[in-house]
């Protein structure tokens, strides 16, 4: 064996071993029973570098959220607001305890939340949907202007427009420096329009049971800055009502008995579930603007399993048929092409595992295209070799010329398809992207396996003075 050939085989064997090493965690993980995988998932002991299955293959739900840009406070640039919103949503979902959640930005103002294994995302939706804008304001119901405004409100059917603003007839009755808000239990209150203390001043929030009636409530503590501000606010407004406002609704309005600095409580007839959700969102912080769900997909676990089973078995059968056909039609050369094809599959899965890529149905389609092109590369080479064989050339010339002449076609067709893949990657959303990623990986791999590896095999065969190769 010449030195150059030895180096070639060294590279091939190293890559093969590396791939098997990368694939092994997948095998180990997916051969465990589902229940054990779930336990490990929640413990966060899932191996990092592993091929993940998309929601269409394993079941779960995805929510596409839109940040209501119109309601952003003008100062914050959209990019920063989005980054903050994603961070806050991630904090909230983490508390909810779903393994492997993915939260990603899509386009300018969309956020995609994927929850594998959750087939009813209602609770997650409630958790995400809350803006969680907590404010403390002083109630000013006892003025004559306030009473006038309330009288007018009682005659109205819809005092608020779609954006939550008061309709003009009522708005003009509201005195300057104050604002009308809904009470949680019905009715309205007039409160100051500026809040000096907000949810941003909180340090912690947790659920407590009230001693008098056993209802759950949320207790919170302020950070140092918040405690100072809250002390000033309560100190200046003794014996007046303090409105605890959450997302523009007054939760409760207790009378300030004394100056409070450290902690407080939000009461209201919460269910335990509501109280827990409120504590979570308060701790995670407020969203820069409300979000709304604009797309929701759920896929039950059985459906995912069914589609993966029938899809996998059909793909396996198709692959076996192709391998057999190549071996029958092209004999030894076909067998060598088959080895390259299997290696192509192994390498693609290994690379996807390394990047923790997610495999979806369109992703499998991309893989099929790249495998088809890998076969085509070998068909091109073998057909060229046959032409040279017909011309009566000796075996080493057949092989060399076969590769040399087929190379330009293989190179150009792969590059063109990679160009298509790159455009899809750039412009495509979710599923189209999944297709493009596996396609590009598969094509790059096929240039290696279908050309470099098969040629190394032929060259190895030639070292034993072979006079003929069946093809």
């Amino acid at each position, binding site marked *: 064996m010449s030195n150059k050939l030895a180096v070639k085989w060294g590279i091939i064997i190293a890559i093969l071993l590396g791939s098997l090493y990368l694939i092994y965690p997948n095998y180990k993980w997916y051969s465990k029973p589902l229940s054990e995988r779930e336990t490990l998932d929640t413990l966060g002991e899932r191996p990092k570098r592993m091929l993940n299955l998309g929601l269409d293959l394993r079941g779960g739900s995805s929510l596409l959220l839109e940040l209501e840009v119109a309601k952003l406070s003008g100062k914050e640039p959209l990019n920063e607001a989005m980054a903050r919103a994603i961070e806050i949503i991630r904090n909230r979902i983490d508390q909810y305890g779903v393994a492997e959640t993915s939260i990603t930005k899509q386009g300018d103002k969309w956020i995609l939340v994927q929850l594998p294994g959750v087939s009813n995302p209602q609770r997650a939706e409630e958790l995400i949907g809350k803006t969680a804008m907590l404010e403390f304001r002083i109630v000013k119901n006892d003025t004559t202007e306030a009473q006038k405004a309330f009288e007018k409100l009682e005659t109205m059917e819809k005092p608020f427009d779609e954006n939550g603003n008061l309709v003009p007839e009522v708005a003009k009755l509201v005195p300057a420096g104050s604002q009308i808000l809904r009470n949680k239990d019905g009715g309205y209150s007039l409160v100051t329009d500026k809040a000096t203390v907000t949810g941003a001043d909180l340090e912690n929030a947790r659920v407590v049971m009230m001693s008098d009636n056993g209802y759950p409530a949320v207790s919170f503590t302020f950070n140092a800055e918040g405690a100072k501000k809250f002390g000033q606010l309560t100190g200046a407004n003794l014996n007046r009502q303090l409105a605890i406002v959450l997302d523009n609704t007054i939760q409760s309005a207790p009378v300030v008995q004394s100056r409070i600095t450290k902690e407080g409580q939000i009461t209201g007839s919460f269910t335990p579930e509501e109280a827990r959700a409120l504590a979570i969102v308060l701790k995670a912080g407020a969203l820069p603007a409300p979000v709304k769900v604009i*797309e929701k997909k759920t896929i039950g676990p059985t459906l995912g399993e069914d589609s993966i089973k029938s899809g996998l078995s059909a793909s396996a059968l198709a692959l076996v048929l*192709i391998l057999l056909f190549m071996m029958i039609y092209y004999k030894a050369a076909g067998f060598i092409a088959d080895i390259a094809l299997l290696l192509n599959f192994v390498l693609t899965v290994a690379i996807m595992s390394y990047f923790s890529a997610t495999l979806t149905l369109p992703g499998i389609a991309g893989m099929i295209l790249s495998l088809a092109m890998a*076969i085509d590369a070998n068909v*091109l080479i073998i057909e060229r070799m046959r032409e040279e064989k017909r011309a009566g050339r000796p075996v080493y010339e057949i092989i060399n010329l076969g590769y040399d002449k087929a190379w330009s076609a293989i190179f150009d*067709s792969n590059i063109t398809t990679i*160009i298509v893949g790159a455009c899809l990657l750039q412009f495509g959303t979710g*599923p189209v992207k999944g297709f493009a990623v596996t396609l590009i990986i598969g094509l790059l791999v096929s240039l290696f396996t279908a050309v470099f590896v098969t040629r190394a095999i032929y060259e190895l065969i030639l*070292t034993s003075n072979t006079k003929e190769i069946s093809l």
Partner: protein
Amino acid sequence: MMNLFPKTHIDFLKYRKVYFSLFAAVLVAGVICFFTKGFNMGIDFTGGTMVQVQFNAPVEMSQVREALSATGANSELQSYGNNAFSISEKSTEQEVGVVQARIEKALDALNVPYTVQQTNSVGPAVGESMTERALWAILLSLVFIIIYVAFRFSNILWGISGVVALFHDLWVMALAFSITGREIDLVVVAAFLTVAGFSINDTIVIFDRMRENIRLHPKMDAAELINTSINETLSRTVITTVTVLFALFVLYFLGGEVINSFAFAMLIGCISGVYSTIALTTPLVYTWTHGQLVADDTNRPATQHNVETFVNEQNRKNNKRNRRNRR
């Protein structure tokens, strides 16, 4: 050597008027079909709601239909056998989830326990953006293909011909989906993209052979050169296509419902792809270049002298390799 294809000498270009008429017919049929019948676009693109349920006891389709009609909404019902149904409703409802709740309420009235297997609610804004982005991606890829092919084969007309064939394949697939009324969802879009990649691959292989033949036989007449190139690559074209069709037939019949429409699209596209390469790309190159395959005579890469250099180059390389192999 097992060989299905003895050396062929088919004159492919002879029938180019037939191909072009057929192409025109496909275009016209497409326009008519797209306007009268339209497409059954999935809710991924139109916006709307789909709910797939599995009843735990036997339920007739008519019962489900009746229960749904009580809601007054215009919903589509599809049976998956085994008491499984998919209900979809295309709507421009801004609020996601409202329709789903309404459908589930209607089904509750049947008093048969069921489980919701799959739901999909898409707001109209999402659908619009999805369509827009997919179209941009396709458009951009076409432009880049033209540029790359023009650069590699030193003639922009080759690139444009390849893209026309690509366009033809996408058009034929769209036509097939319009006629059969099959739903176009994201998986089908992936199939369209796959076919695009495959079709251009076929084209490149024949272009490559033409490029080589121009170098080897600079005096050869354009029509003969194109025919020779197609004939020489015919064996490869058929084998590759048959191999892929093999796989697709298996996926079509055994792959399950999601893969089924993917395989259907691919089958149509692959057959169309092979046809268009032979019957559109090369005849177009021939017609547009007026038998002058290389853009400019002065830039003609292969004179007799060049051919000799090419052959010498090959011999030199081979000798070197032979020496090495013998070692």
